[in-house]
């Protein structure tokens, strides 16, 4: 067994896609060391507030929980830039006073981090965010030959890699005698890397990686490549 074939779990897994080194983080983010940039997708902040506004009693807490997970990754990576790949807020009614308060505390904690939101479908009807918030909104963002978007579109020819969200991907691990629940995952397929949703109060969507795809599961804050997609890769190479 070669070195490349040992498949250990780690909270920071370096991979190379389209000539770029990325690190997949156990906190469900992607760290781009060269650009000192941290990426996450689908935070759905304030989703519980939206439910409450619509008379469905969901307790507070998941928004601060999600932000705490981001803070932890920002601190561990010492990132200078933070990008959300869409669906930062769940709905317009998500911007409740308690959610805004948590978010402002988050901004204040990271004064030197540049923040960017690549707009997602849930952000479409947000209207103007408070001017004082240190965050820019764009519909897409290019970093050399890497494109950042919310939706997993077909990758335009002038790009080598698309980083996106929207799908909330998850897989199930199944052997002859055991089967797990849905595990959130990073999914690489047709030059697209789909990030798992980081929001605590978000669901997942089960995906079935194709023969040429790769998938990395997030389990208890650790990242690990799915054995089947690894196997396919190695057998193809041999």
């Amino acid at each position, binding site marked *: 067994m070669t070195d490349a074939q040992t498949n250990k779990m780690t909270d920071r897994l370096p991979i190379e896609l389209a000539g770029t080194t990325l690190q997949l983080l156990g906190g469900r983010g992607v760290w781009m060391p060269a650009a000192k940039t941290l990426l996450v997708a689908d935070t759905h902040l304030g989703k519980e507030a939206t*439910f*409450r506004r619509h*008379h*469905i009693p*969901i*307790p507070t807490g998941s928004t601060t929980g999600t932000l705490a997970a981001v803070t932890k990754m920002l601190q561990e990576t010492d990132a200078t830039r933070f990008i959300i790949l869409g669906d930062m807020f769940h709905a317009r009614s998500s911007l409740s006073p308690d959610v805004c308060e948590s978010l402002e505390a988050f901004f204040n904690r990271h004064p030197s981090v540049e923040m960017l939101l690549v707009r997602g479908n849930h952000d479409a009807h947000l209207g103007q965010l408070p001017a004082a918030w240190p965050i820019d909104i764009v519909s897409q963002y290019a970093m050399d030959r890497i494109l950042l978007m919310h939706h997993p579109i077909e990758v335009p020819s002038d790009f080598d890699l698309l980083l996106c969200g929207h799908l909330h991907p998850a897989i199930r691990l199944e052997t002859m005698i055991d089967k797990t629940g849905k595990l959130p995952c990073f999914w690489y397929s047709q030059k697209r890397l789909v990030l798992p949703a980081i929001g605590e109060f978000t669901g997942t969507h089960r995906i079935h990686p194709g023969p040429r795809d790769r998938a990395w599961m997030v389990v208890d804050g650790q990242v690990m490549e799915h054995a089947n997609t690894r196997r396919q890769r190695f057998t193809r190479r041999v």
Partner: protein
Amino acid sequence: MLKSPQPSTPNQSVERFFDTIGFRPFRFQRSVWRAYRDGQSGLVHSATGTGKTLAAWMGPLLSFLEKNRDPTKWNPKRPPPLRILWITPLRALAGDTEQSLRAPIDALGLPWRLESRTGDSKASLKARQRKRLPTALITTPESLSLMLTHQNMLDQFANLEGVIVDEWHELLGTKRGVQIELALARLRRLSPHLRTWGLSATLGNLQQAQDTLLGAQACPESSRIIEGSKDKRLKIESVIPNKIDRFPWSGHIGTKMVPQVAELLEQSASTLVFANTRSQTEIWYQHLLKHRRDWAGQIAVHHGSLDASVRRWVEDGLRAGSLRAVVCTSSLDLGVDFTAVDLVVQVGSPKGAARLLQRAGRSGHQPGVASRLVFVPTNAIELVELAAAQDAIRQRKLEAREPIHKPLDVLAQHLVTIAIGGGFESAELLAEVRSTEAYQSLTDAEWEWVIDFVCRGGSSLQAYPEFSRVETINGRYTVTQRRVTRQHRMNIGTIVSDASMKVKYMKGATLGTAEENFISRLSPGEKFLFAGRLVEMVRVKDNAAYVRRATGQPDTVPRWMGGRMPLSSELSDALRGKLEEAAGGQLVGREMKALSGLMKIQQRWSKLPRRDELLIERIKVRGGYQLFVFPFEGRLVHEGLSALMAYRMSQYQKVTFSMACNDYGLVLQSPSIIEIDAAIEQGVFSTDELTGDILSSMNATEMAKRQFRQIARVAGLIQQGFPGQQKKSSHLQASSNLLFDVFNQYDPDNLLLDQSRREVLQHQLEASRMFDALERIGRSQIVITDPPKVTPLAFPLLVDKLRARVSSETLADRVARMQRDLEKAAGES
């Protein structure tokens, strides 16, 4: 047609009506009328087809006749205001019920107006009824609750004289039953002299069934339990396969027996073939049709997922006697009299003696005619079950239906209902709620919590900013926001429907609904059986699956989720008795004699357990070790036991167990050897610290999480979509699993979480039955065998896929192990 009736006493009029339909009133029917006249309430129980409907219905009619003796004063243009509510569990039954209730009204020329109000009723009719209800109204539990949200209807209930709850046994022991209890408490407040009558099949706990219906404050002197006519003759026989294989036969569906069943259908006029699952009805229908192609158009399939129009066509055919046979599920268990049906075929275990009795009663559905049931086993052991069921029926050991104890989700929904329908004061409504059997012992703290839940979202210590549903204005709880009212009315009820999709032809006709889960796994071109036809998937669009007719072989049959009934404890006990007889070499009856070969193999390879023995079989298989345990206590108890055993054993070794259960026993499988002797020594079957260990094992298997689904829906945390309807508010969708996790983390004291644990304990695991089972095991001798092959008793357990899991490994360790297995498997291939 209204003829002016000649003056006669009310009783004479009724006698004349019975003359016209060719019967004489039964003694029990007269008893019910008398009791009703005397202002009493009660319960009428008997098999179906013995005249319960008329027993309950003539009382109110007689009461009117007595108070309005002069027919010249009757004016059909001015029907009397609402007097009677008739509650039916299925809205599909409303039409038939209306017909049979109308017959005597017309025959007596009463000036009554009789109408239905269900989810199917036209909006114009409902609007008219809001202003003025008919003299007698047929409705469902959900529609009744909905009426309570309309303040202007409440005044009309003040004149209500009687409520009749049909098929009460179907509602008892369900949250719909509790919903009725609460609605009845409300009606009794609006009309204090209300008489309540329930119609029920015979149950093991009739007194409790009556108490639950009549409420905690009913006085025993004014209530009666009346038994319907007893002279229903019953013939039960079974189809025994010509050759019983060494193993309980494969396929598990018993379709081998199709030729024999076809022969039976040939010999009878009209037959209901009951199967236990919707998938089985589809399979049986296809096999029957393949066997007798000339029966196309003469046989049909009927189950709850078919489109209403399809079902109606089948029911009409049955009523007219034009169908030779219908393969159905419990969807045809209730109501509707199909007088032409002269034979019932039961495929697979009916799971309880009472149920078997009731199904048999679907044939010979006329007073005085014998009921005939033929049992078709789907595996050999089921023959033992049937033998046991016959014993139980002979000894009248029928099952009880346990009522549900203070579910807070239903109460929360009811509070919003009452708050919309005019509002309430806390103390007053609490007294009313406590007058029900279900909430008799509701504590002040629980009441406060539910009030907090509907007003503030959760306990006042917990933050639910910007939430509102019910508000207080001058100490009165009410709803002022129209959106809350609309949302609540759309979601009233306690039935949880699975996320489902319509199945349609390309041209637009709807066949029925299938679970989203099933549809999403189909690719275009795949063929499956649906509504008795072979169809091919074309595409999924707008929340509907479009299909076209196909030929050839099906690739799959839809699987609908849905509760499978466990074997009742009465039947479990009888089953253990039968096996003990067999162990002693005593094979009584055709069924048991047919099994002698199988019993011998079981004896030779392992053992036939006596009543005072617990049999455990150990087998090594590819990929792990299997442990079969046979308590014969019913599936639910086995589910709890397997989780408990797995949890306790995983405490002394890091391991993951997969489990499966059926009504006879359970199987545990693990990648490493299971040290059962040591485990027994360490108290794997002990009753010490049982509740704590059950709770822990429950968390391990996420049972409480699954149970939370219904609670979340009833308490209004999940907005129920209707099948086929586009989800309008997609931003308000969250799975109950996700909700459970969020509550667990951020409001762990939420009483709804507590309720889901309690429901798992009481209903899912039947903890008290489990305790009894462990006590019994404690007194039993444990026999461990190492059979050379999978034994006849163990075989049916292998057919069910291993599902539940208990693990003491961390998820990360477990995933790492599974990854190694996958890589190893890849290396081998």
